């Protein structure tokens, strides 16, 4: 098997057995990126020199006797994780000239265990979008069909892994931004419990919803990566001071007795029936593995999108105020006064979707509207959380589709933001409640990947990875590669 088809765990074995060195692997993948990425546009920045230096350092560490599973493992970071000395753009013109002066905790932790970062991945501008079409650096194409979107906002991460340019990557998920692109590109992606992975250095979109996590081709690789990304960080007050589970150890638990909940609201109108059928086939497979199935209800699902599109823009409108042209980032030419500096720097620096959400959020927080929008949305958020808490009294995991539709055509929904927002329907509840969620391959519709979503109680990432891994032991959807890559 050629190097680019290997998973992280394959690579770990190969490096340990000295089948090839980290440097050889890195050179090979860098060549592949150079050759294939122009079709996809998944990278914003390729850090070739740094990658080779990190690979050599990893080889040296291994030669000195170190044995870490990620030592020499090639990855790349979504371009909202700050990387010291490397442009960190958030796919925005606003930060096109921004060289981060420090590393995000996630970047720091993965570098410490020997991961080799090949560069920075494309995304929706400031992580706002479900199609990766709002990037200042142009849209990302789906390797399964280059006329279609890869999903977003971690679309660059998803496309690069699906096209076998890299085996795994970091992403972030505010309303589905890891799970939805994973579903649309046949990957496994995990949004951890809010507070499990440090947000220090991950440029904020909506602080109370944002969570970093891994994307890879298998649950096992996600387990490997998450084990090194997760953990308490004193620099992030919302990170939780709780030990990190041994995710690899939990992979092999048998599923007998697993109680799977199917929320009826996830199978209603709006869902592509072919996706519905694929999901039910997954359920059948899990039953064979010993799981029992129960119909449940999450009655407040219908309120999730309106609540999300108040809370996330409200927080974003405040989080993005720091991009004012004063200290870093885009500044307009020859401002005549302070107001001109603000207005033109921001008008020029932000794209349409970012401006739309800043406007919506500013409106939702303004005097006289705050109670009607923001406070009400917070109440809905509590109801959604309560729905999950009571559901998890009866079941161990909740299962449903990740998205209502497979990947759509580039440009198809860019003129209708609400249609694009509705694609987040199944994923945003996990962010609103703060619970972990995973998407994994569940088949194909017209040659396009379908994702199944698993949700679990707080801090039960291990359970999600366990179910996904067991499923991946008896199926091969996740091993399918797009033709041409």
């Amino acid at each position, binding site marked *: 098997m050629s190097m680019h088809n290997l998973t992280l765990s394959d690579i770990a074995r190969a490096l340990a057995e000295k089948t090839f060195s980290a440097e050889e692997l890195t050179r090979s993948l860098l060549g592949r990126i150079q050759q294939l990425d122009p079709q996809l546009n998944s990278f914003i920045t390729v850090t070739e020199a740094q990658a080779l230096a990190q690979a050599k350092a990893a080889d040296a560490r291994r030669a000195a006797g170190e044995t870490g599973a990620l030592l020499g493992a090639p990855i790349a970071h979504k371009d909202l994780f700050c990387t010291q000395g490397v442009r960190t753009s958030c796919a925005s013109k606003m930060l096109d000239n921004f060289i*981060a002066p420090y590393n995000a905790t996630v970047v720091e932790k993965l570098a410490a265990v020997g991961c080799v970062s090949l560069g920075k991945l494309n995304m929706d501008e400031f992580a706002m979008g479900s199609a990766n079409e709002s990037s200042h650096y142009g849209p990302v194409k789906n390797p399964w069909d280059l006329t279609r979107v890869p999903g977003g906002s971690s679309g660059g991460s998803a496309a690069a892994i699906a096209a076998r340019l890299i085996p795994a990557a970091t992403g972030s998920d505010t309303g589905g931004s890891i799970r939805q692109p994973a579903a649309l590109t046949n990957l496994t992606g995990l949004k951890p419990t809010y507070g499990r992975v440090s947000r*220090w250095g991950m440029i*904020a979109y*909506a602080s109370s919803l944002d969570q970093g996590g891994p994307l890879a081709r298998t649950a096992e690789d996600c387990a490997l990566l998450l084990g090194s990304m997760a953990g308490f960080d004193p*620099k992030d*007050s919302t990170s939780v001071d709780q030990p990190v589970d041994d995710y690899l150890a939990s992979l092999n638990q048998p599923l007998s007795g697993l109680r799977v909940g199917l929320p009826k609201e996830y199978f209603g109108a709006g869902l592509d029936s072919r996706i519905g059928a694929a999901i039910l086939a997954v359920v059948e497979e899990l039953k064979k593995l010993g799981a029992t199935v129960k119909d449940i209800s999450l009655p407040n699902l219908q309120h999730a999108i309106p609540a999300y599109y108040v809370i996330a823009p409200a927080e974003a409108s405040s989080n993005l105020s720091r991009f*004012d042209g004063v200290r870093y980032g885009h500044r307009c030419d020859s401002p005549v006064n302070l107001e001109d500096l603000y207005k033109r720097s921001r008008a020029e620096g932000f794209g349409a979707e970012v401006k739309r959400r800043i406007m919506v959020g500013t409106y939702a927080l303004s005097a006289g509207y*705050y109670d009607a929008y923001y406070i009400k949305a917070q109440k809905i958020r509590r109801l959604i959380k309560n729905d999950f808490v009571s559901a998890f009294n009866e079941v161990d995991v909740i299962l449903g589709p990740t998205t209502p539709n497979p990947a759509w055509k580039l440009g198809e929904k860019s003129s209708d933001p609400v249609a694009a927002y509705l694609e987040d329907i199944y994923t945003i509840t996990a962010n609103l409640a703060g619970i972990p969620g995973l998407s994994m391959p569940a088949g194909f519709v017209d040659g396009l990947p379908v994702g199944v979503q698993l949700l679990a109680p707080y801090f039960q990432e291990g359970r999600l990875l366990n179910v996904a891994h067991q499923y991946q032991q008896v199926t091969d959807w996740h091993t399918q590669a797009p033709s041409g890559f």
Partner: protein
Amino acid sequence: MQWETVIGLEIHAQLSTQSKIFSGSATTFGAEPNTQASLVDLAMPGTLPVLNQEAVRMAVKFGLAIEAEIGRTNVFARKNYFYPDLPKGYQTSQMDHPVVGKGHLDISLEDGTIKRVGITRAHLEEDAGKSLHEDFHGMSGIDLNRAGTPLLEIVSEPDMRSAKEAVAYVKAIHALVRYLGICDGNMAEGSLRCDCNVSVRPKGQEAFGTRAEIKNVNSFRFIEKAINHEIQRQIDLIEDGGKVVQETRLYDPSKDETRSMRGKEEANDYRYFPCPDLLPVRLEEDFLDAVRQSLPELPTQKRDRFQSQFGLSVYDASVLSASREMAEYFEQVQQACGDAKLAANWVMGELSSLLNKDGLEIEQSLVSAEQLGGLILRIKDNTISGKIAKTVFEALAAGKGATADEVIEKEGLKQVTDSGAIESMLDEVLAANAAQVEQYRASDEAKRAKMFGFFVGQAMKASKGKANPGQVNELLKQKLEG
């Protein structure tokens, strides 16, 4: 028409923590621009705040001292507005759930009465940086050293009725935060700043008039002047048929006037909402107990004790307890000499004039409490007279001796109480003024009384002030009558 003034104050006290409220940067005043600004203070993308527990402890200390409700669950909120020295585009503050709720402070007024001023709330927030407009040739410089310095904003009820009351309240807050050791109170450096909300209403009317807010007044004297100016401006305006508009005004000390900064319509909509980067702060009973244990004796408690323990008047007790340093100095003098009344008189009299003359604070006093106590002891045991004592005090201030005893010894200021010595000195004085003695003896009682002072003066002068005044009086009377 008779007018009544209504004043409420917002005081920003800079908490004297070592590091900033949400970052590890130092808070030292006067460092080179931007040398105390970390990634967090610069609002670099991706950075996050971590709350400084010491700032919370200090705020709670204040809350307990004013007998306030403590916000057992208090919440930080973002106050959104754009300004170049506000790097995040919002100030992290507290809105609906402040750390300190309703409390009160008793202040002493000049007429000796005590007034209770309500305190609505006190909340924690971060300071902004500074914009520098000089030396940049048409540009502005930003110094973010101060950005993120912890502030406690103390909001009073509209309970003050005159500029003098307002100043008394600010002085009481100033004393309290210094007693508690939570703020250095340095108004010149901006450690304590005051916004004054002022309105007037016809006497007897219950509804408040429209208020104007005077921003950032930074000395006791300016607070009084700014408020008095503003009261007069509002009264003149109304009496001329005009209307006070709700606005923010700025006090210009060089012109002694306030002028409009921005009106209500230009006011920002701050779009407050709970800061999602900071969790609600929960204060456990244990924590509150520990803070309660650490409270020092407070100004009002000290004032009451000075009255009951030392028999001082309300006024004296208030003055002496006005600052922690003043109270400590007084108590040290009292201990050294064992006489509270003399100690009070000297601290409030000679010592205060000396400090005022040199513009010094009591902790910078050139005469230490031990020195002053030693001096008072010599007055009490008649070694020196009260008059000579002032000479000794000045000598101590000038560094002419380590103790009162040393000065008395070196300068030969010891009071003469030897009757024989005094008598012979008096004989010389009377001989030198024979004509006046004759005149005295020929005069009636009323005239004699007047002339007596002349002889006492001559005698004290001849003794260089050292003769015991009581003895001089007595012996002189004998000799003249004799």
